[in-house]
């Protein structure tokens, strides 16, 4: 539970430090999805922790020694907020002063992310995609044939219980989706971009899943389609690079995508942000679906076990009474 607060707090912190884009990401990721995934994992693995066997003195000692060494190391670092620090001397001035002429996007973070360091971002998106594949291969379940009755009962339960929340969410979900699109396409001018938009989009669908049940959500958002989309996003990103190569420039050099360099850059950034958004949203969604599917499957197994135990108990009692 405190992870959520932790995410919020660090996001506030980033706002204070002028890192709007980072705060945006942390707000949507740290406060929402990461906490939810942790919770889902905890519900599966059980809440209780085994008591510790050995005393933590050794660990404490190691931590203290490392910490003091690190603090000793900080004595040589530049002061907080010092404009003369080495970080601000290397490429940052160029980004700040020239990006408006070269890329034509007011949000420097977006222009660096999408244009100057596009290759790096491609790698990051590939990492996200790979992580998504990893989760899928670890957790995906074979398709179930029969529907278990207890599940339907729960759906009804959810409906009865969270009527107010449901109706409010019904009104809210389209709004969240619209807002995600706004973040996606307004990322050039304000804080935002593909990463944030993808997470917000996924969060909206996660809200739908939580309120209307996993099976309903899977009917609406087909898991196979989502997995396909994850790959499509990454491919879109890479294709932009290939197209710019075919036009005679370097990989991911958008200057040649249109007649003049600035509008070429605009098109390139828009396209790759779209690719990033699609990949992030679909990877997050498929991760969540798999976690939730596991949880549900486990709960069903437990319920079945309990039922069979009860039946056995009943049978045993009947046997006892018969013998009596």
């Amino acid at each position: 539970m405190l992870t959520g607060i932790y995410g919020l707090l660090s996001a506030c912190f980033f706002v204070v430090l002028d890192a709007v884009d980072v705060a945006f990401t942390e707000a949507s990721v740290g406060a929402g999805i990461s906490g939810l995934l942790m919770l889902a994992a905890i519900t599966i693995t059980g809440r209780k922790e085994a008591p510790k066997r050995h005393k933590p003195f050794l660990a404490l000692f190691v931590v203290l020694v490392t910490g003091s060494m690190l603090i000793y190391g900080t004595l040589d670092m530049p002061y907080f907020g010092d404009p003369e620090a080495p970080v601000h001397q290397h490429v940052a001035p160029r980004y700040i002063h020239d990006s408006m002429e070269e890329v034509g996007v007011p949000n420097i973070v977006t222009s660096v992310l999408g244009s100057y360091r596009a290759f790096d971002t491609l790698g990051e998106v590939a990492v996200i995609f790979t992580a998504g594949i990893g989760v899928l291969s670890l957790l995906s379940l074979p398709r179930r044939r029969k529907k278990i009755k207890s599940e339907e009962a729960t759906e009804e339960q959810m409906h009865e219980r969270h009527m107010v929340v449901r109706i409010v969410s019904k009104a809210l979900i389209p709004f969240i989706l619209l807002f995600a699109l706004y973040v996606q396409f307004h990322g050039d001018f304000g804080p935002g971009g593909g990463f944030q938009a993808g997470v917000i989009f996924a969060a909206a669908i996660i809200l739908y899943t939580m309120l209307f049940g996993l099976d309903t959500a899977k009917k609406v958002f087909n898991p196979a389609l989502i997995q396909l989309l994850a790959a499509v996003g990454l491919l879109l990103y890479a294709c932009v690079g290939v197209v710019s190569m075919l036009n005679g420039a370097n990989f991911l050099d958008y200057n040649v995508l249109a007649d003049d360099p600035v509008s070429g850059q605009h098109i390139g950034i828009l396209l790759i942000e779209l690719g990033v958004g699609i990949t992030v949203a679909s990877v997050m969604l498929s991760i969540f679906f798999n976690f939730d599917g596991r949880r549900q499957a486990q709960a069903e197994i437990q319920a079945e076990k309990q039922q069979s135990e009860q039946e056995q108990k009943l049978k045993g009692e009947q046997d006892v009474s018969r013998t009596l």
Partner: protein
Amino acid sequence: MFLGLYNYWIVVLLMMIGFYIVIAHGNLVKKLVGLTIFQTSVFIFYITVGMVERGSAPIIAEGISDYSNPLPHVLILTAIVVGIATTALGLALVIRIKEAYGCVEEDEIQKQDQLSEDES
């Protein structure tokens, strides 16, 4: 004199909290939580390094001349999303371990491994 360095101390403190959790707790989920805290401390480190006094958010607007360094922001922005994806992968591994061993405590898992090795 050293007061200008307090941001690094906060980072070190957070990092050590995360580190301690990773070392001292046997529960694998807790270990992942510790790793997340560790990760966030690195994020904060980058952002504080990129901060400039009297600077403003790096979105070009009229009448503002000082901006923070956008480079760390870019790095961390991607790192956060990648971080959640990798954390999810770790959690997935933990779930599989739970299904295979029936627990998520480090000692127990080692004990069970030992037992199965002895048998074979």
